[in-house]
């Protein structure tokens, strides 16, 4: 439940090849950002987390950094290995100004941080203003020619998505919504998220952010008739918040800077898991509009009870030291900050606003104090969901039958609701093998009646817009962030471009993994594929690329044609 959050923030490093003219008589050249990241990459292998997990680290970079292109190449499998970081995760910390310029097909300027370093500590309207001033300075010749560059925003955006498709990195996260929707704006700037992109806390040279995370298993809060057991959920949240708050005091801190930050802000991140299982048990699929309704309603409940519990803890134990001046102290709630984002972005955030609970009463309680500066974050919960035997986070089942690879090994997982449905229909024994053959794709098994199989898409059969809608509805209630993975069958960056713009317009703070379905698979070892019925996806795709009329001469009659 405890996670260290000390991600490296790279934007202050000297960019490659810049002559440090003012730093000494020799005029020596900085090696830039990449060699330092390579150093951290090596460090990951030297350090593990108590032998249980490999060491991990994520590097966040702002897309106005002069070395952005080299950063995008960090995870590629070709090129000078010293310019690569095979183990370091990478993420982009994107300001609204970039997405606006992508939309408008405008120019984007890259700067050496030596000449534009103040951008690191700005966000929203203030960032936009200062960024434009730097552009004007550059165009007037006030910044040395080698310390800035002009590119087309859209071209850079597509290059980012290229890298994402090919290497799964960098993750796309949004700096302005993360900062503008923080309840701790008075406590400093959020310079990056954590490794899993759900913790959004301020950092500075004196303070390293730490967050204590816990997740409620939603699937365990259903009544026998399938409805939500709201009283039980409230009770669970109350206990969880007390436990998380205790952790802050009982924890061992690796550094004084981490301890200091944690005791001043007392942040906790309550999240959830089991959403996909819950939906399956309701007979719903992620593609149904009701899925977003459920996410909205569930996360509202979590948020409401978490805030209420933290207020109760404040009455008992006192508010967090930085409570005065926080958004909380103004009687504001996480969803109120949507207004701040809209104001600074100068446009509406495309998310439904309705709520069902009595938030007005909670505002009064808030003014008296809240125990925790941050309350909610929805983490990926990959490992704990596996232990709890449910689906992770707000994520769908990757497939109805799949393997999860973790540090502890490979584990077969399946969608239990599908298995139950098939058993009820008396189909399970008949289609079990078929499910291995189709790699868990129930839609590809015609023996399963349509009304049943449509309820069980794989993650790749869920529209990305549906996943974004769920995240946006949940993010409304969450004061920190949500790890939102996306799944694509498409192989072109232009197809992804609209999806990530959509994520930004809906006010998400972050996206996480970008899974791309591999086109080809190895020959299955344990099942014989129905050779007559299927042609390999990659032969079809390659032939479509070819636009050749001739088809595979063997009409799928070979074993490896699956």
């Amino acid at each position: 439940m405890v996670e260290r959050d000390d991600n490296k923030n790279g934007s202050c490093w000297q960019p490659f090849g810049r002559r440090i003219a003012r730093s000494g008589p020799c005029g020596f050249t900085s090696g830039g950002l990449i060699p330092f990241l390579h150093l951290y990459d090596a460090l990951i292998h030297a350090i593990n987390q108590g032998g249980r997990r490999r060491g991990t680290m994520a590097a966040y970079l702002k897309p106005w950094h002069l070395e952005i292109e080299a950063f995008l190449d960090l995870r590629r499998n070709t090129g000078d290995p010293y310019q690569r970081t095979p183990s370091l995760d990478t993420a982009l910390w994107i300001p609204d100004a970039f997405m606006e310029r992508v939309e408008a097909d405008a120019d984007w300027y890259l700067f050496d941080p030596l000449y534009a370093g103040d951008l690191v500590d700005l966000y929203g309207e203030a960032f936009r203003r200062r960024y434009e001033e730097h552009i004007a300075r550059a165009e007037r010749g006030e910044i040395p020619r080698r310390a800035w560059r002009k590119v087309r925003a859209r071209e850079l955006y597509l290059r980012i998505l290229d890298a994402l498709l090919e290497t799964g990195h960098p993750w796309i996260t949004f700096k302005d919504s993360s900062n503008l929707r923080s309840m701790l704006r008075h406590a400093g700037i959020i310079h990056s998220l954590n490794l899993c992109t759900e913790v959004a806390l301020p950092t500075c040279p004196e303070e390293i952010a730490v967050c204590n995370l816990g997740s409620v298993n939603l699937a365990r809060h259903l009544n026998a008739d399938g409805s939500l057991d709201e009283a039980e959920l409230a009770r669970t949240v109350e206990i969880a918040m007390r436990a998380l708050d205790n952790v802050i005091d009982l924890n061992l801190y690796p550094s004084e800077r981490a301890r200091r930050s944690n005791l001043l802000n007392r942040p906790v991140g309550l999240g959830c898991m089991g959403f996909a299982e819950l939906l399956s048990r309701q007979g719903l699929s992620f593609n149904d509009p009701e899925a977003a309704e459920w996410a909205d309603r569930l996360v509202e409940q979590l948020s409401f009870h978490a805030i209420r519990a933290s207020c109760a803890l404040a009455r008992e134990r006192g508010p967090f030291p930085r409570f005065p001046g926080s958004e909380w102290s103004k009687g504001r709630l996480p969803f109120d900050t949507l207004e701040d984002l809209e104001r600074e972005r100068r446009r509406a955030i495309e998310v439904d606003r309705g709520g069902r609970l009595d938030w007005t009463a909670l505002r009064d309680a808030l003014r008296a104090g809240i125990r925790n500066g941050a309350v909610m974050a929805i983490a990926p919960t990959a490992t704990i969901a596996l232990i709890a035997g449910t689906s992770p986070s707000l994520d769908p089942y990757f497939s109805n039958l799949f393997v999860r690879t973790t540090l502890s090994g490979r584990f077969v997982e399946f969608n239990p609701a599908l298995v139950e449905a098939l058993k009820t229909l008396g189909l399970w024994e008949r289609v079990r093998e078929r499910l291995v053959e189709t790699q868990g794709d129930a839609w590809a098994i015609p023996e399963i009646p349509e009304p049943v199989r449509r309820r069980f898409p794989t993650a790749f059969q869920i529209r990305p817009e549906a996943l974004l809608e769920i995240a946006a509805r949940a993010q409304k209630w969450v004061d920190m962030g949500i790890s939102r993975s996306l799944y694509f069958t498409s192989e072109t960056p232009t197809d992804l471009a609209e999806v990530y713009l959509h994520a930004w317009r809906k006010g998400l703070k972050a996206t996480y993994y970008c899974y791309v379905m591999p086109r080809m698979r190895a020959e299955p070892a344990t099942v014989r594929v129905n050779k007559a019925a299927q042609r390999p996806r990659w032969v079809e795709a390659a032939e479509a690329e070819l636009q050749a009329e001739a088809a595979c001469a063997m009409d799928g009659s070979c074993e490896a044609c699956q």
Partner: protein
Amino acid sequence: MRSARGLIGGDPVEPLRLFPLSYPWAYAHVQQAKRNTWFPEEAPLHDDVQDWHERLTEEERQAVEILLGFFNPMESLVTSNLLLALYPHLTAPEVRLYLARQAWEEANHAMAFEYVIKTLPVDRERVFGTLEEHPAVAAKAAFQRRLTAEILKPDLDLATIEGRQRLLRNLVGFFVILEGIFFYSGFAFALSFRRRNCLRGLGTIIDWVLKDESLHLSFGVHLIQAFLQENPEVRTPALGEELRRMILEAVALEEAYNQALLPRPVLGLHAGSLNAYVRYVADRRLEELGLGPHFHTPNPFRWLAAEIDLPEQVNFFEARNVNYEVARPRE
């Protein structure tokens, strides 16, 4: 006179003239192969080294050494066969394009196993001497070398039925037997370690090699069938019987190899179960050639479903995600 756009019989040094394609499936295989591009250094072996020291028994270490000592030179035999025996005779341009690509992949595999050999604290001299030291390994190599030598004999004449049957034997010997049988018990053995969460870096390399070999096998089966379609006269009952004998001989060689690999059982595996798996795989290959199964052995390794068949969701910060493909160019 054979058409210049047939699989064989073209001018062997004619410059590449790809379009219009006669064999779109061959070109499709080239396109997919490009996407599957990988390099050995992408698989981190840090944890494997630790496993070697802390978890493997002496028997397991020796078995892994034999495995590496087999794969490393064996991949080079395929390269030689592609370049010396097949490339001169198969003249269809898109087929040659794939052969050239495959030759690179085989070289990449040889380098991948070398990368493992030079990273793990194995007895390198012993590993590089595996062929000489283990008769069962040498016998498999000799089987393949014989097939290549047959094509290199000066009396080969593809204008005759006998000559074209010889070529077909080579195709079956390399694409079906070597790629589709000889490698498979090694794959299963290597993946049995990953099943115990051990040697995961090697497991990743095996994943990639297996994906490549699946493509080679697929290409080979397409090629063989196209060849038979163009040259129906080579398809005699006698040849069918001969191919069947070849496969059964290969199974016997493989069983001797399994015995050398695992003279005594290791955790979860023994030579007998590997033999059963080889028979199961051999039946598949026989069926693919339209020859009918011989052994009717069920697959003893149901656990391979989790290692090979099912889609994999990776926690990026716990394991390397190796499922991304090289992106296609942007339109």
